[in-house]
């Protein structure tokens, strides 16, 4: 069930969403779904030829994983705004931990809004994404 606006408080921590280990298959699936066929995300031969240890994840794949936190908290139709900055690369076998926290609660234009602070971590202390979002709740 989606959170109710009246029950939300600033400082509330959202349920964590985790992907236990990114696989190369995940990246191929995301390439097909998004249409982003940059070979650095699926072609190991090319990636190692340019000096990378392996292929790496699309930034937008991580943003997609992070969207699970929003949908689980506010429901699929709640997203008003979702903004991320990419801070570190996500590699195959990384565990992606997506978290969020309520930073604001307000009414605007007849909408009951909550503001969130978001992040993805790939290792303790390594933030691959920091971001923010605004959700409209019922």
């Amino acid at each position: 069930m989606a959170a109710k606006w009246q029950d939300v408080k600033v400082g509330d921590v959202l349920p964590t969403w985790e992907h236990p280990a990114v696989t190369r298959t995940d990246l191929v699936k995301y390439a097909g779904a998004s249409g982003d066929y940059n070979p650095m995300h699926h072609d190991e031969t090319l990636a190692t030829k340019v000096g990378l240890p392996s292929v790496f994840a699309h930034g937008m794949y991580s943003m997609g994983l992070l969207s699970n936190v929003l949908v689980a908290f506010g429901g699929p139709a709640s997203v008003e705004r979702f903004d991320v900055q990419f801070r570190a690369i996500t590699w195959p076998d990384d565990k992606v931990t997506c978290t969020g926290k309520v930073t604001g609660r307000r009414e605007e234009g007849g909408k009951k809004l909550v503001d969130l602070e978001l992040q993805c971590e790939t290792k303790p202390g390594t933030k691959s994404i920091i971001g923010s979002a605004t959700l409209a709740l019922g």
Partner: protein
Amino acid sequence: MAENPNQALVGKEGPPSTVHVDKSRIRQFARAVGLTDPAYFDEAEAKKRGYPSLIAPPTLPIALGQDAEPGGGGGPQVKWDVRKLLHEGTEIIYDRPIFAGDVLTMRGQLKSIGTREGKNGVRTIYTMESAFYDQQGKRVCALLLRTSEGQ
């Protein structure tokens, strides 16, 4: 600093495109980012929630460019060195949710050019916008991609 020749492209749009949002793309994309809510997969369940059909995952707009008409929906061709680019970030703004069955007009433009201090000097940040409009011309969603060029 020398004038950036791309400055003349700010505010310029590429040719627009019609984009049909379909159920297959929504299901495929939802699966690829690990979403499991039935509203992304099961139309009967989506309708029970009051949606007209399957709802689009929050980051689906990034994928809609591939469903545009050939040559349409993109922004102007920015002159940059692809080897020096970094994807800095993305912002998605919704005026309303997107649903399967929506027929949208996609318009791409170079929204702005800025700079930031990087580890190895100043990076130029290009913000490209893809905006999606309904058949009445009302904006539904805007996708802003920030790409930087530097050393």
